[in-house]
């Protein structure tokens, strides 16, 4: 997908807002893992994305590894790059998720952040494999 199409998608996102919202719901619920990379996506730079993730204080709500905090988990990203960018341009609830506008952050920068998120290893083993969590689970009646 070209950058122009990505921008068009961004403009279309208002119309797609309900769909985006649904996507987010599914994302949070972890019920769907869609393709994370389109063939025409911008090529991102991991190191640049890592720096941008910090500079733009994404870690504030998503944690330094995209797995903790108040915001949805981003590791691994469950939206493809186009929809990731579209979501950041027009988040459904800007009071919770600040809109990242083109004038502030380019598509390329968002692609870098996206690529950084893709590169992150998961630091989240299964709860049952963590002894202290497993023990707390045993204390919890079904």
């Amino acid at each position, binding site marked *: 997908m070209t950058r122009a199409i990505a921008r068009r998608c961004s403009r279309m996102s208002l119309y797609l807002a309900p769909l985006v919202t649904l996507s987010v719901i599914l994302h949070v619920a972890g019920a769907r893992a869609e393709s994370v990379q389109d063939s025409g996506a911008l090529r991102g730079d991991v190191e640049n994305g890592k720096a941008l993730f910090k*500079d*733009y*204080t994404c*870690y*504030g*709500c998503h*944690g*330094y*590894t995209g*797995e*903790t*905090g*108040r915001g949805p*988990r981003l590791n691994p990203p469950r939206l493809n790059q186009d929809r990731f960018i579209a979501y950041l341009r027009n988040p459904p609830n*800007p*009071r919770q998720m*600040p*809109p*990242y*506008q083109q*004038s*502030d*952050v380019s598509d390329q920068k968002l692609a870098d952040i996206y690529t950084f998120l893709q590169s992150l290893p998961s*630091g*989240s*083993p*299964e*709860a049952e494999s*963590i002894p*202290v*969590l497993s*023990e*707390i*689970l045993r*204390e*919890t*009646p*079904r």
Partner: protein
Amino acid sequence: MKTSSKKPHDTSVDRRGFLKGAALGAAGGAALLADKAAAGAEPATPALPAAVPPTPAQLAAETQALPRTRAVEAYIVEHPGSDYMVDVLRALDIEYCASNCGSSFEGLQESIVNHGDNRMPEFLTCLHEESSVAMAHGYAKIEGKPMMALLHGTIGIQHASMAIYNAYCDRVPVYLIAGLDHEGPVAAHNATDMAAMVRDFVKWDHQPRSLDEFGRSAVRAYTIATTPPMAPVLVVVDAHIQKAAVEGNPTVPPISKPQFPSADLGSVKEMARLLVNADNPGIRAGRAARTQDGIDLVVELAELLQAPVDGGSARLNFPSRHPLAGTGTGQPDVILNLEPVSRGGPAGAGTSRTITISTAEFLISSNFNVNGDGAGRADLLIAADAQATLPALIEEVKRLITDDRKRRFEERGARIAAAHSERRRQDIMNARYGWDASPVSLARIAAELWPLIKDEDWSFSSPQGFIGGWPGRLWDMKKSYHAIGAQGGGGMGYSLPASVGAALANKKHGRITININGDGDLNYAPGVLWTAVHHQIPLLTLVHNNRAYHQELMYLQQQSAARNRGVDRAAIGTTITDPNIDYAQMARAYGMYAEGPIENPSDLGPALRRGVERIKAGEPALIDVVTQPR
């Protein structure tokens, strides 16, 4: 083999004999020196006399005081007024006096340490008045009674003011005494009306004009502070009254504790009718439970109704693992608010009817928006103390429940219990996210702590809002001291000193205390670390070191986005980096055992274990953990 019972060089002497010999030797030596001076020459033979008894004049000089001069007689006050003040404080059962020393109360301080033998109250050395008052705040939330903070003049009151405000907002009794010395070294330390600076956020203040009036004032202050809505009180004591000799034989006034205000019978009946007839009632507790009895009463009411309890975060109002803990299922049709925090909870969205029992309307402030909209909007608003009202409400609910209603309640309870169990399991599952990440996740800190403390008698002393509520989500909190809420007024600099105060109260019960302290909060007045070491107060402080005022970072990020000016400068003024602060080094400088900064999550568990061992041995410890923001 023959043995001798006599040792050849037996150097041991009993203490009495040793002292007697020493006295005689000294007297003999003195006589000898006198003789030598008189003779003006060394004696021909230097043999010492075996023992020289003191002369009558020498004995008189050593055992009888010389008459005082008039100046000395005027200077010495054998029975100062502050001795009586200590007697009153002791009668009020005030165990501790936290204070940063000051000349305006030197009379009272001297009486505490000498007349009172530094017991009841014991003088605790603090390095900042804000620490003194916040310690008393934390102590009261554990012990259920006030501790004293002693403040020095205008400057001490102003240093203390933030902590007083927090306690006022949190409805916690703190017993404040401030010294006033018009003849003191610095005129600026005095004021015509000393209490004016904090009058808007103390419940009562008084400046007694005589020692006798101090007695009445001190008792009245205590009664007012400990009657709901509880709050700080301030008694200003003039240095002259502290230092002047007691006249007559003043006695401690009788101490009466009033019954707490509870709802009238008609209101109780109406509440019970609404709750029993409701299809899906919900209970929301703010500062309802002051004591374990309060928790037990909320549990009893909830179990009778099989209604869910949202216990909030201002106190432990309800056991965290009780099947009815949480918000239940569906939209409640009747909401019972018990001492709601600030806004009275969501006021009856949809068709909900709201009942509120609150003392907020009794604690008004002419200047500050302490209680927001007070008890909030309610269909039935009852100005009374919730805990004091619950016994009557429970009895009335029992009377109204029929067998048919009971069956329906049990069905409802089963649904709520299932929802509660599911939420708990989900919380545990969510705790795994970022488990192996660096910086360390807050869920991991809480999870790793739990097995180390769960078989101990433990207390958690810090707010949970900045740490994702993880202790409450993972731990079995059921005692009133398992969680004691937050600042009250949202003033930072609370967590560390309040935790030291809480740990002080827990200490005599053999209870260990855990404090997960934000780095921003810790930097306000870290000198209280020294107080914890100096007085050997066993408190484990884990620094939630996210190197930021993180809430503000997120706010600034939002504000920047709202103006479309870029969010890449939100860290300016909101982060605490460059240089990073080494909190373990800071704690060591105050003499405390410390570890950190811990960045590798696998280092956390062993460090926590060592920290817990330290506090179990009776000393404070600090572990600096570099953490995820939230």
